């Protein structure tokens, strides 16, 4: 982290960048927040540890409109989102100085608390420099431990790899954290009967409170005005009038980001009700892989994705094609 801070200060001082977009330490051991740093003294609060899960790519839409370059800290998985935003002309490459920051997996405080660990005073083992694979947590109810991998965000268990897909320079080492199959959960649901599938999603989505956090955090949801925010749309964006609406919002969103979702996992990270929203997107990714050949959104900057280009040889999935 010290290397990162030193380099950021240097780039600010020599005028290469006008501001730095990173994370600021919170007032609890696990709640840093995204923040801009413009002056040398601001860096006293700068932090980069395993609780910095927030994907900063989407902030670059606004930062691209500012004067001068913004140094943005991107983890390997965040760089896919940045590339995708570049493909969609939503961010300006010339306005970004990308520092690829090392990552060894990000933590989910909810997973720690689910293990009954509460009254947390401090957590050690969450610093990037820490080698330990166990977190030691000091609580008012005594000292507790938790395996690092048991507290990792779901997305880290299916990590896309430690390679940054776009960067100006890289600071820090990354670690492979993948220990599960990306599509295993999707396959489990595919194997269900239609009734079981419906029951599964109805139960999960019945928890939705329509806070829109999944949409607002999503780098693929970058419309200036969302259709669900239209006052002319015959639906409410802030309440599920009936059980149909609680499904409709998420299904429409999944369709809308299909082919563009990089599977960054932010939707599931931010959901206050713990709905595994990434499963919708991952199902689409799996289908695209099967129908159009393996495709990872954000791997590179592309002009057209599988669902936005047409070739004569395109498959014709669906009932019409099956009937011939």
């Amino acid at each position, binding site marked *: 982290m010290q290397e990162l801070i030193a380099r950021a200060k240097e780039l600010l001082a020599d005028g290469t960048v006008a501001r730095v977009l990173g994370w600021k330490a*919170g*007032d609890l051991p696990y709640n840093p927040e995204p923040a801009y740093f413009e002056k040398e003294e601001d860096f006293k609060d700068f932090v980069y540890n395993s609780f910095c899960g927030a994907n900063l790519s989407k902030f670059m839409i606004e930062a691209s409109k500012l004067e001068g370059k913004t140094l943005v800290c991107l983890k390997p998985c965040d760089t896919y989102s940045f590339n995708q935003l570049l493909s969609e002309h939503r961010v300006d490459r010339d306005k970004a100085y990308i520092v690829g920051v090392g990552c060894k997996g990000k933590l989910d405080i909810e997973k720690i608390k689910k293990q009954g660990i509460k009254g947390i005073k401090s957590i050690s083992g969450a610093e990037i420099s820490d080698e330990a694979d166990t977190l030691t947590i000091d609580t*008012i109810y005594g000292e507790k431990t938790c395996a690092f991998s048991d507290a990792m965000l779901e997305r880290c268990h299916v990590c896309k790899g430690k390679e940054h897909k776009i960067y100006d320079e890289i600071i820090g080492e990354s670690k492979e954290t993948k220990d599960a199959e990306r599509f295993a959960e999707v396959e489990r649901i595919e194997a269900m009967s239609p009734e079981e599938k419906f029951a599964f999603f109805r139960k999960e989505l*019945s928890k939705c409170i329509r806070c829109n956090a999944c949409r607002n955090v999503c780098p693929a949801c970058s419309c200036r005005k969302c259709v669900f925010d239209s006052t002319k749309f015959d639906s409410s964006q*802030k309440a599920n009038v009936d059980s149909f609406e609680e499904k409709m919002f998420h299904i429409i969103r999944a369709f809308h980001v299909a082919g563009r979702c990089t599977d960054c996992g932010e939707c599931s990270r931010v959901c*206050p009700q713990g709905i595994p929203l990434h499963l919708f997107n991952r199902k689409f990714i799996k289908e695209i892989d099967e129908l159009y050949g393996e495709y990872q959104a954000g791997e590179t900057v592309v002009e057209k994705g599988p669902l936005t280009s047409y070739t004569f040889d395109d498959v014709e999935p669906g009932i019409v094609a099956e009937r011939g």
Partner: protein
Amino acid sequence: MYKIAKENLSALFRKIAESQELYLPIENCGQVNYGVWTEDANVNIDILKTVKSPKDAFFPQSENLYTCVKEDKKISIKAEQLKEQDFVVFGMKACDIQGVEVLDKVFLSEPVDSFYKARREHGVIVAMACGEPEETCFCKVFGIDPADPKADVATWIIDGELFWKPLTDKGEALTDAVKDVFAEDSSADAKVEAKKEEINKITEQLPYMKLSLEGWNGDSLDEKFNSPVWEELYKPCLACGTCTFVCPTCQCYDIKDYDTGHGVQRYRCWDSCMYSDFTMMAHGNNRNSQMQRYRQRFMHKLVYFPANNDGMYSCVGCGRCVEKCPQSLNIVKVIKAFENQGGEKA
């Protein structure tokens, strides 16, 4: 005072549910929220905080106000019935109970909200002391005692037993109706006192409990409103409604029409000052940047509300926003930011 073993609580729930609806914390797909008790409900009374506060029991996230039905050229209007049956909300914590008192100030003052009033009249609150408060709790800042909740009935869980103490007439009536399932315990008072002391000892160690609200009152309106601090604080805000929807005191709502195809359902639903169409009027919106919307939420809780309600803050320190904000922003950070910078002009 009465008591019942924790493992026999389903007998109590069944007994209550014989005559009325019972709301209590129920686990669904890994998350605990208040819901209606059924025989197969996965009740979780060990949870400290449900994701959403129990305010739904009195002020549901969305509720119908009336329905218009069109038949040929005739339009008929059917008003929604007010709540007429008694119901019980079991397990409410002291912070959430004060949350309801905040809602009372809004909905029971003129013009009285008849939907809310009917629910308040028919609702019986069974409170529960907080066994193990957490680092995100700061109820004491608002004068709330997590060890000694005040409602129709107060309960404490001590060594696998639930102790039950009616405090109001409504509470006595409920107790009479269910007391077959209870045993009496002459040493209960001493046990409860010891428990309260234990809880207070825990609270003393919690980092947010000594937060200072100095300078937050109706008189500080201009100073707080014009502070440059907001410009820094709001930046990571996603403009989602998580903080407002998990909050026990947020009371803003919107009224909308839902086209049923053969009529119109007029309903109201919780609104969020974080949303771009909040208080949208014909002329447009009077808060057109996220900074203004962000500022509104905290100014309302810590300045406007106390100015209009004899100094009562509309935050109860439950800490749900602290736990749930996707970007880790919250009211505690706001209060601390002003403490550090004094809200002085840059």
